[in-house]
């Protein structure tokens, strides 16, 4: 997968700087730079050190930072998530890598009960500056237990922040912000995007949370997407422009908590139509939340109800054809946009 066409290089881009790196290396740079900057930052997780990362995200970090700061954990998600939360209560800044967010379910009590509530339960005495990161969403025929999209499940909980980058530039800028953030951040990556190359400048930049970005301008229909589905939306927009003459405005949400509703609302007030793309299940989801908020804020602006594109409401199947049929894709987005524009 290569970087999406028509996608801006990002606000930090400098003319002539064409350095392109993989998504995984952008994550690596973010962690390494922050570890050089702040000795309280350390990385722990399964296979992060001697194996160089199960997905090579932490490649070379053990060699640079040593085993005290890049720490292999046994397969013990609840234990090591809790250990990291305890360390964060003391003021350290752990980065916890989940090989897959699917495995974070084993640690649900620690990451949902302890990390996001500690500040509140202690009356502001103990915060939890921690980053949980790893692969989220379908990896490709991994079956139901390994294909979780946790965003809808976890975004429900107050006290946590959630970032979901769609490209290497954002991956680096958002992860650096996440590591410096004083609150717990759930950082959702995608196995399917780790090899994606994209422009990442040499000089330092951070991307603030709560700022969505318009990836493609258009006057006919707003398409809100997060993470990997931004690429599906961009692909759909190309085809819709060419075949149907529909100009989509594609918004990359970048963070789910906080959600940049202002950017979305400004776009919907212009296009009067809205499609939300969310790779998780539809029931009580990020997609339904965005649809509800857009409906509340833009009731008088909408020409049609907010359309949603989700994964089908079934466990992720193994068979290639069935999995493809279940996941959001450009075709489903095209159909939703056409419907929203009364063109179906």
């Amino acid at each position, binding site marked *: 997968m290569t970087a999406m066409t028509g996608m801006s290089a990002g606000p930090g881009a400098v003319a002539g700087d064409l350095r392109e790196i993989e998504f995984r290396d952008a994550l690596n740079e973010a962690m390494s730079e922050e570890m050089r900057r702040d000795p309280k930052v*350390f990385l722990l997780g399964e296979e992060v050190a001697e194996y160089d990362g199960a997905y090579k995200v932490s490649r070379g970090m053990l060699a640079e930072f040593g085993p005290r700061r890049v720490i292999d954990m046994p397969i013990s998600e609840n234990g090591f998530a809790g*250990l990291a*939360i305890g360390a964060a209560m003391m003021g350290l800044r752990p980065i916890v890598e989940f090989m897959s967010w699917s495995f974070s379910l084993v640690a649900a009590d620690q990451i949902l009960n302890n990390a996001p509530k500690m500040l509140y339960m202690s009356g502001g005495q103990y915060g939890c500056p921690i980053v949980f990161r790893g692969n989220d969403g379908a990896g490709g025929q991994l079956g139901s237990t390994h294909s979780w999209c946790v965003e809808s499940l976890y975004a429900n909980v107050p006290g946590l922040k959630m970032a979901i980058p769609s490209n290497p530039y954002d991956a680096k800028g958002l992860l650096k912000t996440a590591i410096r953030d004083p609150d717990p951040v759930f950082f959702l990556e995608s196995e399917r995007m780790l090899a994606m190359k994209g422009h990442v400048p040499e000089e330092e930049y951070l991307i603030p949370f709560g700022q969505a970005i318009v990836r493609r301008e258009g006057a006919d229909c707003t398409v809100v997407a997060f993470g990997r589905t931004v690429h599906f939306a961009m692909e759909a927009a190309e085809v819709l422009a060419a075949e149907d003459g529909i100009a989509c405005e594609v918004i990359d949400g970048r963070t789910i908590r906080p959600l940049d509703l202002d950017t979305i609302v400004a776009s919907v007030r212009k296009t009067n139509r809205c499609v939300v793309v969310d790779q998780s299940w539809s029931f009580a989801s990020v997609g339904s939340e965005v649809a509800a908020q857009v409906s509340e804020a833009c009731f008088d602006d909408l020409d049609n109800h907010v359309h949603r594109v989700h994964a089908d409401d079934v466990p992720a199947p193994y068979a290639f054809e069935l999995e493809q049929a279940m996941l959001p894709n450009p075709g489903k987005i095209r159909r939703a946009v056409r419907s929203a524009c009364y063109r179906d």
Partner: protein
Amino acid sequence: MTPTMPKPAASPGAAESTFPSSRPLPAGVAPETIVSWLRDMMLIREFEVRTMQAYQEKKIGGFCHVYIGQEAVAVGCTAAIRPDDPMITAYRDHGHALARGMDPRHCMAEMFGKIGGCAKGKGGSMHMFDRANNLFGGHGIVGAQTALGAGLAFATKYEDEVLRDGRSDRVTLCFLGDGALNQGVFHESKNLAGLFDLPVIYVVENNGYSMGTAIHRGTTVAHDLSVKAQAYGIEAIEVDGMDCVAVYERMKAFCDRCRETSRPGFVDMKTYRFKGHSMSDPRKYRTREEEAQYEADDPIGKLKTSLVSAGVLDEAAVKAMQKEIRAEVRASIEWSEASPAPGPEELYHDVYVEKWGPYTGTSDPEMLREGGER
């Protein structure tokens, strides 16, 4: 008494503890320090008696678990560590908070749900936090704090060794009940502590019952919990938790060694809660005879007798102390009653460090506040 119950005075070398017999006071500890232990235990006892009253008067809501009978554990353990050593515990936590030095007013006001509470009334009985005294809570989910305890020890070691380039010099005390023995997270935590040489001591306050389930009904090898530590390469000791002096002596040596070697420890702390699991427990799962037997082994009576026998205190001094404590606890109740309820602005404080919210969808939070919804 059932044959499987932990027996009082199980610690080797401890005197037969049939109240009111006395036991020798520890050498090398100033008598006034030992008097302060007695005072702390008496304070916890009085505090908990008044807590139960306040609960019955509906001044305290939610779940409430009192520490009566187990006072020697928190007091003896706290005396064995330094103020900069982190401490963390489960939900039966009032005793630990007071032993650690929390002002009884802040502890009581927390249960009253008042702004003067240690957590501004947002935590309640099960969530006593005291940053100034290095108490990291009060945790409500059984066993969850054992992973946090490993993390606190990881952090002190990281701070001492990585950030300060020195040697690990602090010990974390992580308390849990015997009911937490069978939570997966405790097994994971023991494995991590053993694996990474974390200076954390898991103090199992073994009062014989996880709620209404006697230990042998829920736990394998209940007669020898040390095997549950040895499996993870952790040294285990058994301590008579009804004897404050024994708790101090054994824990002091154990903590010192843990500090020196930066290795974890496990303590089977035999104790007994004189009251029910929580305020709504009719205690049908144990006999009144068993309770009477343990009440005769009262840790407060025992230390009192020892101090009087040693000539450190006389009855009049004990009475004066009791009077002073009564007044202090009564004052904490009055102070808590007078403390205001947390204002509506507190609802959205402390959700995030840097406030961006409140997040309420597109509803105006001011409506929620002014509409008297609370």
